[in-house]
């Protein structure tokens, strides 16, 4: 935590300065909030029914909850498939068979470089044109496939670096008891690598959940799509978008918490170092909570 050592424990003058900075900071934050609220007021965004209509049964039962359900469906399918894709191509990059390694490398590097939205739009229109799927499921297929190819490639890299991150002794020990390369990979290295990478994996799930909102652009009726629909039908677009954003923030924040928890639980079960990707952020939040 070098951040904490950048400065000494403040003396009397330092404490006074800090109070001044705190007050100035608070004034700036409050000032911005007031400006925003004034603008809200000028344009009628503070009218009560624009907000209360977000908390009606119609808003939740017909729009937000079905939208949230579809978001979770798309995210869950993408998570499962990208795990599968990641393990297959991650191992592909580690195999001793050269052509397989090259192909895996090309696939992974290619799908990491192409924007998710480009893939989503192409799959959406492409499958619509090719008539491969039922038209009602084409948007879902496009969303899941695009998210799988991109995040699966990222996970493949995680698998690879997870295996590389293991102490050499693990591989050597496996070789010493007569395991072949692939057997050592499968039975010794991959299981430990998977555990070590679980926190990074969960933070990749946050990316999947966030990117599933792109589905609204290809008419997949997920949370953002449904809240836009509700907002435009009820003249409270801004409020609908704010509620949708809050739901996403809450979901992702819970996932991040999970990553932290998992990292703490699992560090004893692998030879590789385990740390939550956001360990610093999380620790600071916890410190704040205790204080």
């Amino acid at each position, binding site marked *: 935590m070098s951040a904490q050592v950048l400065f000494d424990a403040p003396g009397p003058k330092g404490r006074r300065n800090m109070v001044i900075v705190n007050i100035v900071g608070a004034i700036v934050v409050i000032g911005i909030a007031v400006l925003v609220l004034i603008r809200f007021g000028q344009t009628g965004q503070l009218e009560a029914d624009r907000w209360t209509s977000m908390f009606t049964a119609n808003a939740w039962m017909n729009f937000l909850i079905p939208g949230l359900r579809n978001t979770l469906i798309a995210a869950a399918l993408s998570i499962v498939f990208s795990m*599968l894709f990641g393990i297959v191509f991650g191992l592909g990059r580690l195999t001793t068979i050269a052509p397989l390694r090259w192909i895996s490398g090309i696939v992974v590097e290619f799908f990491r470089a192409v924007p998710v939205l480009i893939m989503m739009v192409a799959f959406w229109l492409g499958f619509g044109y090719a008539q491969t*799927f*039922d*038209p009602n*499921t*084409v948007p879902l297929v496009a969303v899941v496939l695009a998210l799988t190819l991109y995040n699966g490639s990222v996970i493949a890299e995680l698998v690879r670096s997870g295996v590389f991150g293991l102490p050499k002794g693990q591989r050597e020990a496996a070789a010493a008891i007569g395991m072949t390369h692939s057997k050592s990979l499968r039975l010794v290295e991959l*299981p430990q690598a998977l555990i070590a990478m679980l926190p990074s994996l969960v933070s990749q799930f946050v990316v999947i959940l966030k990117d599933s909102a792109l589905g609204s652009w290809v*008419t997949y009726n997920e949370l953002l799509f449904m809240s*836009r629909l509700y907002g435009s039908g*009820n003249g409270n677009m801004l409020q609908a978008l704010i509620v949708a954003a809050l739901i996403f923030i809450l979901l992702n924040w819970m996932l991040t918490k999970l990553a932290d928890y998992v990292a703490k639980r699992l560090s004893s079960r692998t030879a590789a170092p385990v740390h939550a990707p956001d360990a610093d952020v999380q620790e600071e939040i916890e410190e704040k909570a205790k204080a």
Partner: protein
Amino acid sequence: MRNTRVTIAAVAAAAALTLAACSSDSSDTDTDAGGDADTTSEESEDTGGEGGGDTIRIGIKFDQPGLGYQEGSEYTGFDVDVATYVAESLGYTPDQIEWVSAPSAQRENLLQTGQVDMIFATYSITDDRDEVVDFAGPYYVAGQDLLVRADDDSITGPEDLNGKNLCSVTGSTSAERIKEDYAEDVQLVEQAGYADCVTVLESGQVDAVTTDDIILAGLAATPANQGKFKVVGNPFSEENYGIGIPEGSDQCEAINEAVTAMIDSGDWESFVSANTEGTGYTPNADLNPPTLRGC
């Protein structure tokens, strides 16, 4: 170590199951698309049955208030009303109708592959489309027009849009037509849906929204928009809304009979007025109710 292996096996098994579910999904889409776990639309709960010959699959828009609009498991709008009427004449109760989302770009595909039996989705009859699918009807003649704020009298037609701001959806032909034929200096913003256009029209960031007049009227007639907007009533194109059916279908005559009966009985008029209530919109009387063009 044993625990780990069990976990991995479980993950693999789950993935395999999902894969299996997905591949069956793709292989028999044409026979049974309503019952799959993946289906996102609401009708899977409604039909429940074996997906046999008891139901009729009708393509409509899901996102166009006043024409075809999905609100939970309810479907409302003029297209929905007409479709329900026609289906009833063909011997299907409303419970036997399975609504399918038919976005503009996919309508021909849906018909050609037999994934829907009919389409009522603001589907203009054009020569190009007529070559690949059949049309019954038309059941309505719309025209591209403008929607403006109710207190705005400065816009009476597309020529007045020079120097003004216009909203349309991505890929719309009517916005292009205005820019090319009527008002070069119009500023155009594209949105994902017409409803989004209406919110920026209300706030004053754009001065007009353009598309077919009945779509505009439908938007203006939603409860939240009542009294805020008006349709200019100066249409600059003619769009014959047909009922799309697969090429060579034998249903055309029966559908046209149903449409004629609907117009004669006055139901057509009550469908129009119910879905455009409060907007002062009336269909172009020279062309409506439409003359059927025969099969």
